[in-house]
């Protein structure tokens, strides 16, 4: 039992905080911060290790596809159309006679870039606006919320068609430009959701007494927002981000299918999935493999998000 009235007595018994994560108590008495504690905690979480390994693998595939396959993803042999998996082509061939394994590997790049970049941009715009609206309130909040409402009101597909078709009308566009445009249009149409989530979390955090205490200490606005409000408001946004990542990779596929997103010669999982639509019954493997990779990647990010969220919450440790 502790005796808070005398400091020396507190160290004695080991049973003093049974509910608390005693394992968080590490030898040595160097002051630590939330970030270092979170990292320390993450490294021993199986969930984190598995998801991080998966993501690392996908990233390797995205940036050094030649490590995994030597087959050209754009070499088609019509004679092998819809052939099933074999020793020569592990995932088989699609309708056009492309090697599916090679295309799945090469397709990861566009999908990952679109998914990650669109998520980052969405979260960045949404969180910044949400934090500012939540902190300042008043007319700024009103204005930002109304702007968000306008974007929120646009149907996703219609909005993307308008943005993409009006920007790519000007002649030739390279693959990089298309990816950039897709990322931008997804982010522009999705940030209001993130802003709403961040705004309400920020308002809840702002009303806590620790913010009042920080203001009484003379803390600057940036300190209050970054040190006190953001860490306490980030959890729901993280959940949203991990779900959004999967949705965005899927959105890229939708746009490709409509003929306004990525298109050949760019390969992406979305392009592959939409290509397989017509042959699903005769060649299910052409859908199965890219879809499986997509699902596994999304799952890995969801798990990573979960692990990070828990590590950032001292109570969950």
């Amino acid at each position, binding site marked *: 039992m502790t005796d808070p009235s005398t*400091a020396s007595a507190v160290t004695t018994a080991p049973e003093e905080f049974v509910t608390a*994560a005693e394992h968080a108590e590490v030898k040595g008495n160097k002051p630590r911060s939330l970030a270092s504690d979170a990292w320390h905690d993450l490294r021993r979480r199986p969930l984190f290790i598995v998801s991080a390994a998966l993501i690392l693998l996908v990233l390797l595939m995205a940036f050094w596809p030649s490590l995994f396959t030597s087959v050209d993803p754009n070499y088609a042999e019509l004679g092998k159309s819809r052939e099933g998996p074999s020793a020569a082509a592990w995932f088989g061939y699609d309708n056009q006679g492309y090697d599916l394994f090679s295309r799945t590997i090469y397709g990861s790049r566009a999908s990952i870039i679109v998914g990650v970049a669109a998520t980052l941009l969405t979260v960045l715009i949404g969180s910044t606006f949400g934090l500012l609206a939540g902190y300042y309130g008043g007319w700024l909040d009103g204005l930002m919320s109304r702007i968000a409402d306008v974007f929120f009101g646009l149907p996703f597909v219609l909005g993307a068609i308008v943005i993409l078709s009006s920007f790519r009308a000007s002649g030739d566009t390279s693959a990089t430009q298309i990816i950039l445009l897709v990322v931008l249009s997804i982010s522009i149409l999705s940030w209001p959701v993130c802003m709403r989530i961040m705004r309400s979390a920020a308002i809840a955090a702002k009303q806590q007494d620790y913010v*009042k205490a920080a203001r*009484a200490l003379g803390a600057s606005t940036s300190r209050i927002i970054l040190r006190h409000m953001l860490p*306490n408001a980030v959890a729901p946004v993280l959940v949203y981000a991990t779900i959004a990542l999967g949705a965005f990779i899927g959105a890229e596929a939708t746009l490709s299918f409509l003929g306004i997103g990525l298109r050949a010669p760019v390969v992406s999982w979305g392009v592959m999935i939409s290509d397989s639509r017509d042959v699903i019954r005769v060649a299910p493997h052409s859908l199965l493999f890219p879809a499986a990779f997509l699902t596994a990647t999304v799952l890995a990010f969801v798990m990573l998000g979960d692990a990070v969220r828990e590590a950032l*919450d001292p109570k969950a440790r």
Partner: protein
Amino acid sequence: MTDNIIEVRDLVKHFPVRVGVLFKRTVGYVRAVDGVSFDLKRGETLGVVGESGCGKSTLAQVLMRLEPATSGTATFEGRDILKMKGGELRKLRRDIQIVLQDPYTSLNPRMTVGDIIGEPFEIHPEVAPKGSRAKKVRELLDVVGLNPEHINRYPHQFSGGQRQRIGIARALALRPKVIVCDEPVSALDVSIQAQVMNLLGDLQTEFGLSYVFIAHDLSVVRHLSDRVAVMYLGKMVEVGTEEEIYEHPTHPYTQALLSAVPVPDPELRNQRQVIRLEGDVPSPVDPPSGCRFRTRCWKAQDICATAEPELVTRVANHPSACHFAEEKSIVP
């Protein structure tokens, strides 16, 4: 320089009541603090008591510059707190600190205790050079009776009383001259409450602090205060030394308040003289004319509705804002 460390004169804080979605219209004002004057002497504890909605917490917020005042002055060592800006205001933060009521929400759950108590030094780096901060934090933990080894723990690993000690350590870090305590023990259990009250008493002696001690619990206030101010609906109705207020109250509200406090002694159960007030506190948006207490007062006369009683000494030796102030012993 006078002996008063803080002087407050005619302090007013009105919160506008707004309606409307897009174009907000002000329909009235919550008169949270409505003309309050008092002095805080160096090294003393001024207790401020009153029921919820009397404006005592708003008073603390205004003094801390967490809310802007509507009008009036409040000086700290002769300088007007309410007009301070920039560097001067930063300096003031080092001199006046606050301890908040709720030990559960007043500490950031995602910061270690070391970070929480060290934050004042980060905000005011001139107070302690970087290398000495960890040592200072440990000293502070020791001062408030916590184990300095617990610097890396998080708030949820502590009980309510221990958290309140952390909050006190944070307030103490910059060695302030005044600490505003806003209901510091009302969320704590009896046995823990006593520990924290003793700590506050010890710290006052050790560091020569002056306290503005805000609470609704009259027994707690009596225990710690040298002087006591009683508030009702944004006004101070009676001010005096602890003994004057508790032994010789002259305002009917003070008397009713004292008589409503249950005394932990069954022997006195039916022997005490009891004044039961009718009804609830009126809304601060539309307070009664004249004396604000008249709607619940058993002494109310016509004059109470028309003339607002000044807070002046009429009987006994201390000021009381009642036309019919009269000494009456309530506490057994």
